[in-house]
């Protein structure tokens, strides 16, 4: 797949790398015992360590180390049993220490790979250069007071994983797919909640452009993108800006830029005079971070089935299409719902898993998703639980209701939250499979339609559909279609 920016003097391709900052799911901060919960009153989750009071010393949170290792294992990365914390020095009002504790030369996780599904069975591997642990800064609010910037240090010291990709991305869509896939993996393993709107995950995008065959151009970094849509848009806008600049005879300057989604442009963020010079050096307050193979294996043992493996299993063992399997595994919540649904359906219907797997998948991706979309809800707040869905599907399997009636029942379930059996009972929708009862109805209909009968017997085979329709109509759609067909034909042919 290629993405070409057409300039006046020729075509340019784009080269993109991403840094994803993912907040580690932990109760307390990376180096202090204060809480990490979102939305607390300002400065109530701040210890004297986070506020950088003199003499305060950092102590590392074991859970943050474990989650970083699990994340590395989930992308098949090298885990470094010895890593080092460095100080990244800069001045800003929401960074009380005057430096961020990060990892520069020796990160905890080395090279790994994230595989993107680009549709139609096409995949693309994006290299991950490293993942390191670092502290988040506080939060500045510039628009609350005419003279002051307000600073809240609740986020100060919260653990982040910075996930740095190789410059392997060539289109805005690949960048979006990469962020989506990383978020999916993080949510599967539970090392980050992936909520971009709450700032638990955000991306910095490095963009450069070049003519075909040329070496990499100078890149610009667009900071702090908090949605996948903005990742895609900012790359498009920034690539266009660089191409226009180059074609007007200018040169791209390596700098940090900000994406303004309202104006649809990127703007320079820091002045050139203050060119970044972080003067990294090993933090003298922290010894190297070391652990053994047993620690790594214990972390590996807690990894769940990951999306790629789950997708393969759904295709190979359950017989789902690659597309359907891809839709189901994309979000952990959906995949979990499907597996609970399928298990419950197998239990309720006593049928083989592979024989009902597609039916369950179709109901979930068709009926339930359709209804959820229409109602503006997500799988997290569905009024029809996986167990209730299984009950409904089991009623089709055992012939209690037809597929058509099931759709009616489902609508009532979705509105009222009632169980399938209850709705069928209340509305009297139970399928009629009693042969005697159906036979009597068939006899009546044949008797009432002598013309159609004559035409059928005269060779118009297709009229059988007419008779089936009449029977269904007479039973309010409740006759078992299989039974109707079996009984009807011999009588017509008699």
């Amino acid at each position: 797949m290629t993405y070409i920016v057409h300039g006046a003097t020729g075509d340019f391709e784009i080269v993109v790398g991403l840094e994803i900052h993912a907040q580690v799911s932990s109760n307390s901060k990376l180096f202090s015992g204060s809480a990490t919960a979102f939305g607390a009153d300002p400065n109530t989750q701040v210890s004297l360590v986070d506020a950088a009071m003199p003499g305060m010393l950092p102590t590392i949170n074991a859970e943050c180390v474990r989650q970083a290792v699990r994340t590395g294992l989930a992308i098949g990365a090298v885990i470094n049993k010895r890593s080092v914390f460095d100080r990244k020095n800069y001045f800003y009002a929401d960074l009380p220490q005057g430096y961020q504790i990060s990892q520069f030369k020796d990160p905890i996780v080395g090279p790994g790979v994230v595989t993107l599904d680009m549709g139609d069975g096409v995949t693309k591997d994006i290299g991950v250069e490293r993942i390191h642990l670092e502290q988040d800064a506080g939060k500045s609010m510039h628009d609350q007071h005419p003279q002051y910037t307000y600073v809240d240090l609740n986020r100060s010291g919260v653990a982040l994983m910075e996930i740095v990709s190789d410059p392997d991305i060539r289109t805005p869509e690949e960048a979006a797919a990469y962020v989506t896939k990383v978020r999916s993996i993080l949510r599967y393993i539970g090392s980050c909640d992936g909520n971009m709107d709450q700032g638990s995950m955000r991306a910095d995008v490095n963009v450069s452009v070049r003519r075909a065959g040329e070496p990499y151009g100078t890149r610009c970094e667009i900071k702090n993108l908090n949605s996948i849509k903005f990742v895609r848009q900012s790359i498009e806008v920034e690539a266009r800006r660089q191409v226009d600049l180059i074609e007007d005879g200018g040169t791209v300057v390596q700098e940090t830029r900000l994406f303004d989604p309202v104006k649809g442009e990127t703007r320079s963020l820091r002045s050139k005079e203050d060119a970044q010079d972080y003067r990294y050096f090993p933090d003298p307050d922290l010894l190297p971070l070391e652990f053994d193979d047993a620690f790594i294996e214990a972390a590996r043992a807690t990894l769940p089935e990951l999306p790629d493996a789950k997708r393969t299993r759904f295709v190979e063992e359950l017989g789902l299409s690659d597309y359907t399997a891809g839709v189901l595994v994309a979000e952990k919540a959906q995949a979990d719902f499907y597996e609970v649904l399928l298990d419950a359906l197998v239990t309720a219907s006593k049928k083989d898993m592979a024989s009902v797997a597609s039916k369950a998948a179709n109901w979930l991706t068709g009926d339930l998703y359709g209804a959820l979309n229409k109602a503006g809800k997500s799988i997290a707040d569905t009024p029809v639980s996986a167990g209730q869905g299984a009950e409904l599907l089991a009623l089709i399997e055992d012939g209690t209701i037809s597929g058509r009636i099931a759709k009616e029942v489902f609508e009532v379930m979705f509105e009222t939250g009632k169980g399938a059996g209850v709705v069928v009972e209340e509305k009297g929708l139970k399928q009629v499979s009693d042969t005697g009862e159906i036979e009597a109805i068939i006899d009546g209909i044949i008797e009432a339609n002598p013309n159609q009968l004559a035409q059928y017997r005269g060779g118009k085979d297709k009229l059988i559909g007419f008779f089936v329709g009449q029977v269904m109509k007479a039973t309010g759609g409740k006759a078992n279609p299989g039974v109707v067909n079996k009984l009807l034909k011999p009588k017509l042919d008699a």
Partner: protein
Amino acid sequence: MSHIDKATVAKIARLSRIKIEDDKLEPLAGELNNILGWVEQLEEVNTDNVLPMASVVDVKLRWRTDEVTDGGKRDSVLKNSPNHEYGFFAVPKVIE
């Protein structure tokens, strides 16, 4: 051997937010070069296959369990700040 000139001293000072008068830059450069020169004597020692020493005592990094044991002390945290409003630090406007 590295050499610190007047411009480098000025740059380091600015990055560290330390105000240094112009006439002090040259003498400081001399002092810093002396310190660096002294430390550079270490380069005479062959350190191939020697790991960087993180501590002079044989201790390991101490880990803690993931428990909330701190925080909830906003008054202490804000106490030394020249200005605070509504529970926030209030600092001169930072505009980018």
